[in-house]
């Protein structure tokens, strides 16, 4: 897959992981695991990028005697998820067309 494309999609996946409630690094990776494997380094870069784009906010809180960073989605972040869903509805239509008539359904 085009790396830029994949990067853009992974960004939205991370946003989706925090869309209902704030979350922290390891939990995000765990939540995504059944669907997509993500390494810590990738997550770090994505979180930094999303923070820079103001799609999420970060706060540090104490947890079990140590500090932990919590990430919370912003309205812009929610908007980005909606944009993604719209774009990909279109892509799904195109996919249906490309695979129509295939002897098996992927």
């Amino acid at each position, binding site marked *: 897959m085009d790396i830029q494309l994949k990067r853009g999609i992974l960004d939205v996946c991370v946003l989706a992981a925090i869309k209902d409630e704030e979350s*922290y*690094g*390891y*939990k995000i990776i765990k939540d995504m695991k059944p669907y997509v494997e993500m*390494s*810590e*380094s990738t997550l*770090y*870069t994505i979180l930094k990028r999303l923070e820079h784009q103001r799609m999420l906010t970060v706060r540090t809180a104490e947890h*079990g005697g*140590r*500090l*932990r*960073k919590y990430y919370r989605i912003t309205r812009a972040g929610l908007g980005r998820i909606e944009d993604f869903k719209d774009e990909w509805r279109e892509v799904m239509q195109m996919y249906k067309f490309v695979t129509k008539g295939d002897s098996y359904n992927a």
Partner: protein
Amino acid sequence: MRKEEFLKSLRRKLWKLSAAEREERVLFYSEMIDDRMEEGLSEAAAVRSVGSTDAISEEVLRERKEKKIEAAAERKPLSGTNILLLVLGFPLWFPLLAAAFAVAVALYAVLVSVAVSLWAVFVSLVASGVGGLVASVFYFASGGTPLGFALLGASLAALGLSIFLFFACKECTKWTLNLTKQAFVSVKNRILRKESI
């Protein structure tokens, strides 16, 4: 590996980053390791699951390169303020630029004159060598043998030196021509690159 070892190694491998960036990343991984240990993993297993410090530092460097390329590709055209500053500052920067250019031209002239003078010396050595040889023949013919020998010796020396000088001249000329070509090419590239934006 223990967590502290891992973090120390990571800190070392990320030396290229600024202190703030480096600490942020190290903290991030420290948090990851702690979270995994909270889930029940042993310290060693938690450290292992986070990846190797080599792999992490490699990825960090790769991302920095990509970011630099992206930033360069996104170079914006000159903003209005910048254009205004450029115009207003014209009496300031233009004379400076012209002076710098004049200095560059002068330096280049010096280089060329060095090459030219080397060739001039070469030509005079050859001329005096050949002339001396011819003159020595006359001296031998008219019986002035010691003078003839002296002249012969001097002429041969001159011709010998000229052979060495020839190679020096050739190198110097080649070098100067190369420099000129490189200067033109780099100027052309800068102009073309600006146009392609």
